[in-house]
């Protein structure tokens, strides 16, 4: 798969806000409709939702929690919160926003329990490991490019990494990222902008 990273210069233009989303409640197969069925006792609807978001949520959590071994536990807690809170769910926002908001809170709780606040990692992650991606034999392999990208993502400061993953895994727009992470729009934009800047820098050799 050829991926053209044609925009290597970090654009300073403001991030575009996510486009207006159609009302998902009107779509029969939408997440919100499925959640509505689940609220009324349809187990198959939950199974559909779980199949849709099992992998994205797990990957999101795996790259966010301090210990990768805790990822399945956090994912389970997230889904259990959805199950137990199904009566309280109201489709005012997209289900995916609701789901990843829970996962965000659970992951941050893990950091708090460890006594380490993720913000402390912001400066510590300035040194992006790029040694592996400069190896010549990787240059022609998209698989290697993917591995390098994953390594670069793992090296991102936590909050920037989270912003990128919310976009990549959940497909959230800027406003939704801000809502999930409990920040304002500008902060969410900045995190995503800095994340891309770091990714570009770390994958400079792939240009």
């Amino acid at each position, binding site marked *: 798969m050829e*991926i053209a990273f044609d925009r290597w210069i970090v654009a300073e233009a403001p991030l*575009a806000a996510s486009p207006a989303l159609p009302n998902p409640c009107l779509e029969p197969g939408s997440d919100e409709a499925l959640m509505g069925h689940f609220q009324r*006792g349809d*187990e198959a609807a939950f199974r559909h939702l*779980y199949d849709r978001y099992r*992998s994205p949520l797990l990957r999101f959590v795996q790259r966010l929690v301090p210990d990768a071994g805790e990822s399945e536990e956090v994912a*389970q807690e997230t*889904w259990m919160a959805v*199950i137990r809170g199904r009566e309280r769910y109201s489709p005012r926002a997209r289900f995916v926003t609701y789901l990843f908001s829970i996962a965000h809170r659970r992951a941050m709780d893990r950091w708090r329990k460890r006594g380490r606040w993720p913000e402390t990692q912001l400066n510590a992650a300035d040194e992006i490991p790029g040694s592996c991606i400069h190896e010549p034999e990787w240059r022609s392999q998209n698989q290697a490019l993917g591995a390098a990208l*994953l390594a670069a993502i793992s090296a991102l400061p936590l909050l920037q990494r989270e912003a990128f993953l919310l976009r990549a895994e959940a497909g959230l727009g800027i406003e939704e990222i801000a809502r999930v992470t409990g920040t304002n729009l500008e902060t969410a934009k900045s995190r995503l902008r800095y994340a891309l800047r770091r990714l570009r820098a770390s994958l400079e050799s792939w240009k």
Partner: protein
Amino acid sequence: MTNDSITPWVLQYRASVEDAPTPKLDQAILAAAGSHLARRRTTRLIARVSVIGAFAMFAISPVPNVRHPATDSRTASGYGRFEGTSRSYLLEVQTHHFTGFGVAEDIP
């Protein structure tokens, strides 16, 4: 920064990641969802049965169906029926004469 600038990164990321099977986790979550719904169904069933049972018990209970004898307010008490007897009794009845007990301390 525009949406277009992040799209290649997102696409490359999605092409790079793989789905890791987690059968135990899947089983635990789906089982939890099933048992949660089953508990809710059971709770609702019990509530419905209780309400229906309460109505049924009230409906078949003899309490609301007891036939009280019809009473005529004019004849129910029979007041005045034996007025003559009562009157004669009242005319004949005598009060007990007060013995004077305690009127004087020396009279026992």
